[in-house]
Structure formats: structure tokens, C-alpha cells
């Protein structure tokens, strides 16, 4: 029975991927393509967050700032040093990974909500720093100029290339997650998530593995940030607000923290909702979608029996429903 579910799940994934590849052939409304790109974006950052959050059990509320670092650094590499974003995104990713690891390392002795607090502090500090820093444009941020060479500068007049790049990055980050999940590193992460003291007792250097999880998670988040910068072409310090970190986490919470696919499902559910609200309410009621997100978050915590870690074992309602359909348990 296990084999059957395994084959079926992978089959579903491949079919799903095939469909996504083909979507632009049938739909050419730019706004719909935009929504898909945003779905991919939030999916990828949420999966990246989940490496530190769901897999290693350290819930960071500062990921918006890591995403923004990626966006800022890759943009500046383009503007100041003329480095193509295809390379720049990886440089900015690693840079963010290193910086975050250094500053969060002392905070690894903190557990649970205290660690989250430290990440909030980091994000807020960074945001205030960038808001008053000339070199990064202060509160105005950075506007990426328009270049002629579309491919070198990853700037396209059509949304299609962004669609496929976004999809590719999403698949890449997803694959990294799956690989980690089954690897020795993954076992270390999961053990320290489940019980830090027990993990320590069986030989796991918890600080070192928290560092590894942080580094990988932040690097991938920042790469996604670079992609964001290329697509939106505007970066500002307010991207680092805590509420955007919540926006990154919510797909994982809704879809299943600790599962590989959960954040992606969550993104498919939440992103169209928030895009709709953005369009329907317009700039008249800015922040409306965040109110909805806040209510969803509070609702899940208040009414779901195990709150946000409810689906840690990988048995979320979607998976159980799908498995039932496939004739499983």
C-alpha cells in the first residue's frame, strides 16, 4: 500500500507540474499569469522558510528581511557592478545566508518563542537601518532601471519568462527540501525540532545544525528575493515588516508545517485570495488582505486543536483526503 501511495503522489506531482508548464499556452491574460507568478513566489519562500521552521522547528518571524536582503543585494549588484542577476541572485543568496547565520548564531540558545523574538528583532533592526541608510536609498528604496538587454538583465516585457523562472525556482527549492528531509541533515533537523534535549543526548550538536538550517533556509529565501526584485523592479525597507514575514509563513501553516508540499498548497489557496483583495479593495483599503491573513492565523490558532504545528506529522487534511481517495487507509 505504501508503494502505491508513493507512486500515486509522485504521479500527481508530475501531472501537476506538466499542467503548470502548459498553463501559459492556454491562458494569456497577463493578470492571471501575474497571480501564478506570485503563487510561485510565495510558494518558494514559504518552502524555504519551512526548512528552518517545519523541518528544524525554529520559527523565524524575520524571513521577510532575509528576502529583502536578497532583493537589495542583487539589485545593487546589477546597478553598481553590472552583474547579471542570473549570477547575482546566488551571490546575494549566499551573502544573506552568511549575514543571518552570524547574527542569529548567538540566538540559538533561545528556544521556541524567544528565538522567534530574536528574529523579529533582527528584521526590525535591519528595516530601520535600511530606512535611514543613504547607500540603499533610505525609505525610498531602490528602483531598478530599465535595461535593453532583456536576457542579461533578466528584464522582460512579457510576463512569460518570469512565469517559467519562478516555476523553475519553486521546483528547485522544493527538491532541496525533499532531499534534506531524507538526508542525515534532515534527521538532525527533525530530531532537534522534536526534542532538543533528546537530540543533544544522542550526539547532535544542536547549535551547529540550527546554523546549517538557518544558512540554507535564508540563502534560498534571499534567492527568491532576488527573483522578486527582478520581477517587481522595486525594493523598499518596508518589505521587511513583520507582517510580511507572517505572509511568508501563513502558506506553510495553512498547508502543513513540516510537509514539503504544504506551503505550496497553502500558497495556491492564499495568494489568489490576497491578490483578489488587493484588486477588489484597491489602494483605498490598503492592508485589507493582511487583516484577512491575521484573522486566518488567529482563527487557526484559536480553533484548530494543535494550532500551527497541527500538521507536523505530515497528516494534514488534504493529504488524508487525497490518500482516502487513492484507496489508502
Amino acid at each position: 500500500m505504501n508503494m502505491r501511495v508513493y507512486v500515486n503522489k509522485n504521479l500527481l506531482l508530475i501531472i501537476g507540474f506538466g499542467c503548470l508548464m502548459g498553463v501559459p499556452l492556454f491562458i494569456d491574460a497577463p493578470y492571471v499569469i501575474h497571480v501564478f507568478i506570485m503563487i510561485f513566489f510565495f510558494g518558494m519562500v514559504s518552502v524555504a522558510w519551512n526548512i528552518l521552521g517545519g523541518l528544524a522547528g525554529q520559527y523565524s518571524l524575520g524571513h521577510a528581511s532575509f528576502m529583502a536582503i536578497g532583493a537589495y543585494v542583487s539589485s545593487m549588484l546589477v546597478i553598481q557592478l553590472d552583474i547579471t542577476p542570473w549570477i547575482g541572485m546566488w551571490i546575494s543568496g549566499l551573502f544573506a545566508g552568511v549575514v543571518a547565520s552570524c547574527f542569529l548564531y548567538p540566538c540559538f540558545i533561545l528556544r521556541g518563542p524567544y528565538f522567534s523574538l530574536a528574529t523579529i528583532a533582527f528584521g526590525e533592526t535591519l528595516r530601520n537601518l535600511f530606512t535611514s541608510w543613504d547607500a540603499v536609498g533610505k525609505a525610498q528604496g531602490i528602483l531598478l532601471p530599465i535595461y535593453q538587454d532583456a536576457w542579461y538583465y533578466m528584464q522582460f516585457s512579457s510576463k512569460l519568462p518570469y512565469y517559467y523562472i519562478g516555476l523553475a525556482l519553486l521546483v528547485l527549492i522544493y527538491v532541496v527540501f525533499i532531499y534534506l528531509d531524507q538526508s542525515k541533515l534532515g534527521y538532525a533537523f527533525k530530531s532537534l525540532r522534536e526534542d532538543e534535549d533528546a537530540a543533544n543526548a544522542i550526539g547532535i550538536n544542536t547549535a551547529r545544525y540550527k546554523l546549517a538550517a538557518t544558512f540554507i533556509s535564508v540563502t534560498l529565501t534571499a534567492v527568491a528575493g532576488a527573483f522578486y526584485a527582478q520581477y517587481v523592479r522595486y525594493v523598499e525597507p518596508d518589505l521587511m515588516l513583520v507582517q510580511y514575514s507572517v505572509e511568508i509563513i501563513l502558506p506553510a501553516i495553512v498547508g502543513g508545517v513540516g510537509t514539503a508540499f504544504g506551503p505550496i498548497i497553502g500558497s495556491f489557496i492564499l495568494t489568489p485570495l490576497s491578490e483578489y483583495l488587493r484588486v477588489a479593495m484597491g489602494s483605498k483599503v490598503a492592508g485589507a488582505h493582511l487583516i484577512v491573513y491575521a484573522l486566518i492565523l488567529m482563527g487557526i490558532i484559536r480553533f484548530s486543536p494543535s494550532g500551527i504545528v497541527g500538521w507536523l506529522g505530515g497528516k494534514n487534511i488534504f493529504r488524508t483526503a487525497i490518500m482516502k481517495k487513492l484507496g489508502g487507509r
Partner: protein
Amino acid sequence: MLQVDQVSKEFRGLRALNNVSFGIEAGKITGLIGPNGAGKTTLFNVISGVFRPTTGKVIFHNQDVTLLQPYERCSLGMARTFQIMKPLPYMSVIDNVIAGCMFGRYNCSSLASSRAKTLEILEFTALMHRKDVLAKELGTADKKRLELARALGTNPSLLLLDEVMSGLNNTESDECVQLIRKINQNGITVLLIEHVMKVVVNLCKKIIVLHHGEKIAEGEADEVMNNELVIEVYLGKEEEHAQA
């Protein structure tokens, strides 16, 4: 192979351990007993590295490990179970033990080699039939077995067992005793905290008695069981006992 040297532990003015010293012989099963609150688990925590002693040293395999983290002691061969059990709840039984194998002294680098070792251990501890069950769904006896199995996964030379019999019925207790004997016969030194006297006397060559954080007796089972002070500490003074 384990030497506890004048260990004291203070918590903000409360002296939980006071100048405790003893040695553990390799290859034997030693018992650590004492009334509730005597400081037994605190002593375990100092030995395994969860706490640093206020004064004193812990020497393991002739190495001063007093300042080492628990995971470092694990790689030297020290493993422990916890009084309040700590399974990795949302991971399956087999994953729990695989984790032990990967990071302990077998140092398995691949999933495959860990699995192989793990299956051996699951066989040994009679957990094979529950290998894919999530740890949080196990019954008490199986959870205890899991704690043992996971500790064994780290390939220890010294196994610290903290009240591993608590919550077990008679049959389960007997099975546990058999298991501990088997483990010891495989060459692993055991130091166990226990309240069930029958078990302690049955299993242990040497017994150490703790009371109010101090060692009040140490020696062979008979000696210790007939020691006046030990009897007094457990059963109260003769007059009081008569009145009760």
C-alpha cells in the same frame, strides 16, 4: 570507567548535591537509589552534561568531561534515558532509532547503513512490530523500549537509565530486567536509578545510596540493604515506624 569526583550542585542557594564521589566499574550494572528528592536525577544530569556541577569533576574513560556538552559525551560513549520520557514524538519508531545511529558512535553516514543497524536494534528490543508507528502513539512500555533502543543506537559504553521501570506492570518489569541483562552481557556498563528494590537487588552488583544530595552508602547489595542508615532513610526510625 566513570568517576564522579566531589561533585556538588547548587541551584540559587539550594544545594542539590553535596560532595558526591564514587566510581563505576566497567562491565557491571550499578544501582543508584535514594528517596524522592535525593538528587539522583540531578546527579545524572551532571554526569551526562545537562548541568554543570558547581564544584567537582566527572571523569569518563580517564578523560575529564566536566565541561563537555551532552552530545560530546555521547560521542565518547555515554548514553542516557530520561525519567520523563523524551521520544521524538512525530517521528516513527524506526526514525527515532535511526537518528540515534546516525549521530552516535556508529556514525552512520547514509540512511541505508543506519537502517541496517536500526533493524538489528529493533529486533533486540522487540520493537520490530511497531517500527512504523509514530512515537507519540506508543504505550508506556514500548516508549521505554524506544528510549532504550535509541540510546543503544548511539553505541554506548555506558548506559545511564533513569527510572526505566516506572509505570511498568510486573510482566513488563520482568521483560525490562531481562533486556537490561542482555544489554549488559553485550559489554555495556549500566548505571541505573531505580525505586523498585526487587529489581535493584536482582540486577546490581554495587549500589550507591543518595539522601538529601549526599552519598550515604556504597557497596554490595547485601551490605547496603542491611545498612542502618539506609533503612532509616527509607523506612523512618524504629520508634516512628512502630507508631505508624
